[in-house]
């Protein structure tokens, strides 16, 4: 349960793996809140329809999503150019997961790949600015992230925590972690529900990042758990 503000322009989201479902989650939340068409420029089969159906609160949420898959860098670039023709200021979001992936394929000569990738990123960034539409791309490695952030207007990062993945960066919030049977909520969730009582305890933030083990000791009652309350899942 992550939330992103989806600001206009190019946002680079650093993901733990190329096929991380966090993107599907973010896109579904965006689709639920907006009316326009969303375009998904796929690479490396990230657009698993199964994951999308899992993330969508109802299949109808996905009605306005359009996906085109690329199998070569050339096709990826062609799809980007096609989005230029299709997108309008009313477009909900443009997504390009694993945006650098195809350009690392063996069949793209070294001299061509940088130029082609640069054109792709430039096009996406310009498109976001010109139409004032959010363009979300993901990068799964340091090298890919570095390549994308040169052109990006915003940057968010997925951080692995003990409880799951959380988003951090421009306009990002993580409201909770799905634990299979219940939601492990976070402070921002309660802040969202009840308002701010105090600023977020730095100890909690540190625990979130796994910097020390804040799990309650078995049988012990030493000063209470740092964990926030568990709430029942509601779907």
């Amino acid at each position, binding site marked *: 349960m992550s939330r992103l503000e989806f600001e206009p322009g190019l946002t680079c989201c650093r993901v733990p793996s190329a096929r991380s479902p966090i993107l599907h989650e973010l896109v579904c939340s965006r689709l639920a809140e907006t009316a326009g068409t969303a*375009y998904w420029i796929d690479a490396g089969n990230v*657009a698993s*329809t*199964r994951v*999308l*159906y899992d993330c969508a609160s109802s*299949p109808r949420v*996905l*009605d306005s*999503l*359009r*996906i*085109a*898959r*690329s*199998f*070569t860098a*050339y*096709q*990826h*670039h*062609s*799809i980007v*150019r*096609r989005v230029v023709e*299709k997108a309008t200021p009313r477009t909900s979001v443009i997504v390009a997961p694993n945006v650098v992936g195809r350009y690392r394929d*063996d*069949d793209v*000569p070294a*001299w*061509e790949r940088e*130029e*082609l990738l640069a*054109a792709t990123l430039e096009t996406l960034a310009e498109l976001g600015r010109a139409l004032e539409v959010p363009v979300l791309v993901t990068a799964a490695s340091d090298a890919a992230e570095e390549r994308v952030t040169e052109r990006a207007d915003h940057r968010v990062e997925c951080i692995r925590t003990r409880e799951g993945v959380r988003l951090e960066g421009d306009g990002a919030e993580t409201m909770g972690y799905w634990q299979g049977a219940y939601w492990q909520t976070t402070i921002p969730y309660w802040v969202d529900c009840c308002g701010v009582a105090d600023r977020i305890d730095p100890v909690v933030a540190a625990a979130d990042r796994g910097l020390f083990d804040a799990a309650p000791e078995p049988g012990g009652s030493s000063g209470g758990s740092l964990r926030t309350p568990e709430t029942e899942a509601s779907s």
Partner: protein
Amino acid sequence: MTAPYTFEFEDGLVREWRLTEDGATFREVEHYRPSLFVSAPDLSGLEARLRSDPKVSGTTRERWAADLHESHADDRTELLRVSVERVDEIRTLAREIRGGDGRVPLAPGTIRLYDVDLDPGFRYCLDNGIDPTPERGSRTTRGPERGLQTLEIEIDDPGLADEDVSELRLDGERVTGDPADVCWSIGRRLDRVDPDVLVLSHGELVPVLESAAARAGLEEFHLGRLPGWRRIAGANTYESYGAVGHSPARYRVPGRAIVDRSNSFLWHQSGLPGLLYMVEKTGRPLQEVARGSIGTLLTSRQIRLARTEYDVLAPQNKWEPEEFKDVSTLHAGDRGGFTFSPEVGFHEDVHEIDFASLYPRIICRRNVSPETIGCDRDHGSGGDGLSGHGSDDCDGSTFESPPDVATVPDLEYDRCSKPGFLPEVLTTLLDDRAEIKRRLESDSLADETARRLRAESGAIKWVLVSCFGYQGYRNAKFGRIECHEAINAYARDIALRAKTRLEDGGWHVVHGIVDSLWVTARADDPEPLEAVVEDVSSSVGIDLEHDGRYEWVCFVPLRDSSEGASVGGDSASPVRSSSPTHPQSRSTRPGALNKYFGKRTDGSYKFRGIETRQRSTPEYVVESQREFVAVLDRERDPAAVCDALEARIGRLRRGAVDPDRLVHTKRVSRRLEEYGQRTRTVAALERYDRHGIDRHPGQSVEYVVTDDDADGIERVRLAFEDCPSVDVEYYSNLLVSACVSIVSALGWNRRRIREHLRDGKTVRLSTFASSE
């Protein structure tokens, strides 16, 4: 005069070789100017610039279809034909035009190139309308080899690594001695046979033999019909379909086609007759057919047809992307082929029926082609036809009778009835294969003819097998993902229709994978299978064939599920029939889709997916597993199979198994230094390294496990090394695994087998007799 069959390109000159009655003659062609084609927004500017390029011999404007859609819609685009002086300059020029020299400030994708990466011989034949199929003598007298003379030269790996030619095989016959003598013998044989085709165990034999002969002062020795040889490509390692392959360096000698056995899939599948058939069907000269992958051969056939019949050139890269689709269409399209989950267990009286060449037939019967799927009413470029709203005038009413004429089931893609490109590529192959099959069934064939037909049929089979996967393959020149989806959608539809009709006729489907169904009688008096099969064939328009009848078939559970769930765990666990009277034998354990074995009614066995069929399995384990199956057939009792296992392990313990029969053959996927873990393959690679033998990813290693607990190179011995002892525990485990595959369908797992073995040891005399 016959057409030329092999070609050399040297310094702007082409040497064409033609077969004569008793040899071959050549002709030198001086003015061959190969071309590539360019589509660009500003052809004039490009043309002006290219005219000053010394590589370029000329430019002209020509009208071609930019892709199959354009051809389909009778549209043409103006392209620039750029001819070069020498065939090896095409790629350099292509790179310069695309902007690789940093001089062209155009956006990527605005310049598209065609006919860039064609193999030179293929390109030459295509440009000159040459059919390079070699033939000597009259049609009646030449055998399967069409009158061609071959000479086969073999060397073993250690010999090649040491460049030691003191032991070779010539046409299977061992030739040993001083390298000078061996070379002299080869030279004499070359003179006498005057081969048109040199079949080499390794292409590297060309430089090795030529330099050995030079060292020995044999000036007259040359492998070609003229002195000289050439390396035409270096070795490289590549990745394809997720597997690593290695292609060795390639060589050419004048006047003879080389078949490098280490780099020819088709040679191993169908020999020279199969290669020759493919020369005819692809237009690639023999040497280029021999080294071509199945996908390459299919592509060549497509390129030739596209150019000659469709006015479409071979695009250099695949720019044409998938159309945007909604999630539900994508979901439906992505479902893959249909499978009925196998019912794990032992089934009696099973019929196997399958759709012959299902995928290629779907392509032909349903007119699936890149330009027919999603074709809009104007026969224009793809696009909106994929949105799923049919256009009636695109209906293929005359093409076939089934109701799914205009749209693809599940996907709602429009499909045009104008005869498609892909069906045309495949129809000849399908027809030839059907005709061969018909002729082979008539028994009046001479052995020679039958051998040729079988080889050709084998070659066609592989190309047909690849035609489906190829549609989704990222580098397929004329592939399109929507075709891949459409073929799958039709296949699912057809399988379901067959299943329904079979069930209506009183048959029960016990398993089904894509194009094959296994059925047993469900009712006491089912409709005759032949009648049902015929009915299905005529209703779907693709022949369903009765492939075989089995006394019994075992479907093996998934490995993970066989350990925990021992459903047949009762002590005597006899084989039960799956006939309707014994419904309890139906297991709910998930079955492995492609793991089964059975006994045909003619007494022969069929094995799929189990150890026996795996390339890496040592011979002794293969033989043992086949024995387990025979015991199962005879005794119908897992305990009896385990007794056979025990005897097999006993022989291993007594040292009665020759280490030669325990050799593993494994494909190497990485270079030695890239392996992170110390596997057996690593140990084997280290040993090869010590012998100075190169093993590249994609090649195989052959070893015997001597001590699986050892850490370094002591863990294994190579097949050609002396083997002091073998690791009995390791091989016993392999035998147990092979046994698990056989008895797991009956509910026995590894633990159960171990218990049986342990019990046996204490009670039976035979085990005392065989213990050390």
